[in-house]
């Protein structure tokens, strides 16, 4: 992960089905009592996992067949709710670390937080996401590939088109997703813009 360029992400995948999965479910608020993101991975989906376990089932994040997963497959409006960056921080630190997410759609703040951590969130048609999920659940070892250059996701013989807004896609492909340096380069323009705004200059 030292090369910041994100073009082709390949690895086993895990599917977490369900619409509108919010960031409170991804990382419950009690785990936000920390001043570093380290250690959050173990608590990804903590309450969902415990409840599935209590009901005698196995949450995908507890399923040993998906322990090696690098790609996460999700449904609609994933990551809605709280802006907590602890959510992607937990997902990227769970297991071997999730490196890309494919879903029907994403909540905006979550999407931006993922990009800021070098994690592409790409969208696909609902039927295609379902096909990918079915395949991954059937054959957990089959690697899924997300190609940000051709905008395709593939698994075995299944190839589906994916989308990502051009700005964030370029940030990832060009390895410029850590935006601080880019923003700092505009330092003179920042000062000029501030001067132009009446409230920045005390309404002078």
């Amino acid at each position, binding site marked *: 992960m030292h090369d910041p360029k994100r073009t082709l992400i390949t690895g086993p995948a895990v599917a977490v089905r369900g619409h509108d999965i919010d960031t*409170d479910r991804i990382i419950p608020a009690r785990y936000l009592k920390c001043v570093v993101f380290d250690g959050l991975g173990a608590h990804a989906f903590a309450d969902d996992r415990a409840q599935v376990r209590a009901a005698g089932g196995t949450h995908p994040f507890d399923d040993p067949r998906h322990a090696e997963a690098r790609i996460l497959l999700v449904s609609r409006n994933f990551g809605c709710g709280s802006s907590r960056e602890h959510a992607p921080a937990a997902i990227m630190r769970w297991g071997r670390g999730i490196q890309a997410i494919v879903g029907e759609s994403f909540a905006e703040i979550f999407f931006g937080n993922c990009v800021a951590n070098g994690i592409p969130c790409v969208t696909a048609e609902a039927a295609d996401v379902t096909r990918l999920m079915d395949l991954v659940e059937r054959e957990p070892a089959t690697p899924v590939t997300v190609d940000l250059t051709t905008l395709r996701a593939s698994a075995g013989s299944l190839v589906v088109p994916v989308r990502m807004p051009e*700005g964030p896609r370029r940030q990832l492909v060009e390895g410029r997703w850590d935006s601080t340096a880019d923003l700092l380069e*505009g330092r003179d323009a*920042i000062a000029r813009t501030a001067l132009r705004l009446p409230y920045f200059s005390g309404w002078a």
Partner: protein
Amino acid sequence: MGQTLYDKVFDAHTVRRLPSGQYQVLMGLHLIHEVTSPQAFSMLRERGLRVLYPERTFATVDHIIPTHSQARPLTDAQAEEMLQHLERNVEEFGIRYFAPSRGEQGIVHVIGPERGLTQPGMTICCGDSHTSTHGAFGAIAFGIGTSQVRDVLATQCLALDRLRVRRIEVNGALRPGVYAKDVILWIINRLGVHGGVGYAYEYAGEVLDRFSLEERMTVCNMSIEGGARCGYVNPDATTYAYLRDRDFAPAGAAWDQAVRWWESIRSDAGAAYADVVTMRGEDIEPVVTWGITPGQSTPIGLPLPAPASFPESERALVDEAYRYMQLEPGKPVKGARIDVAFIGSCTNGRLSDFEEVARHIRGRRFRVAPHVTAMVVPGSQQVRHEMVRRGLDQVFREAGFDVREAGCSMCLAMNPDRLEGSQLCASSSNRNFKGRQGSPTGRTLLMSPVMVAAAAIAGEVADAREVFGITGTTVT
């Protein structure tokens, strides 16, 4: 073609186009709190960066602060550590801190407005999704993640894509007993929890025009629950009257200049919108959520919807919600026995919220039902101070409510205020997500503060209009 406020403010703050094609946008006001900022300050230190405009960032503590006592050290060692980190960071980087010890502390979205920091035409961000609240002033305000907090500290800027603007007009008038909270829950029910993704919501129409600034804040606050990262109301005389004479508001000659500028950034009459949605205020009923997303809600008088009435793609979520909430389709939510009642949060923790509830319970011998724990949590120390000054705390105490210190409290339960087991809570907060109020199996019903008070007194979900005898004619 005219422009929207969103476009005017976005353009005025655009620094330049970035190599990615995104816009570098200057932030006029940055608010921080203890939960989402420590990692950002650590990143600054690692990179040897300073805060570029320290006078444009303001800090407070809200999420973790206990509401039984704010005495230091905090009983919870983790909370105390987070608070110490915040204190160290604001000290080292020269950031103004609204401290509990000075009576200035509160929920970040309550104190920004009450100090007069939140002003029309600003870009406002905070590591908190309910930053949309500040849009009530005609600002472009939205939540950000911690990496973006780092960006704003270091550069006062963010890399952003432009949003489309959807205008939501609520015309006519609300019926008595229907509040701003009902309006926004109604909107979310109609447009969906993901309907606003990619949009800024411009709220307008006669109902919004007539709303107080605090009512507008309640509406804008929950834009994010509708998927819209920001929502706003165009500034008008109500906005200016609210701002006048507040600590950080422009004064003297600057005031007139400010009002002229604020007027100039209002959406033009002929502005182009991506979308316009209209609703009638008279149609809106008191709303209660029954599920695990803020869109799963119903007018209080109706039976809970049948799963078959939802599109196929929604049914799994609807079934999951009914299972989790232990509620049954076809039955009314009215009458569901509650365990806890919570009035507070950045949605409904302002003075006017408590005044409105107090107006209905004062001198009427209403008592919280014996089996219900009822909490009143002011949004800020200043709100609490005003409640005491006006005797509202007494009104609540006499009715059996526990009046606490200021903070986020049971909205997200990062402090000791939380549900136990599968308790059912009538809550004036903003999220009914699974586990949101601190117990992994806790259950939340979102509603207006007056409806929460009615539920607390009845011991079960009730129609506040019946409990309090709210009648009268439509406001015109």
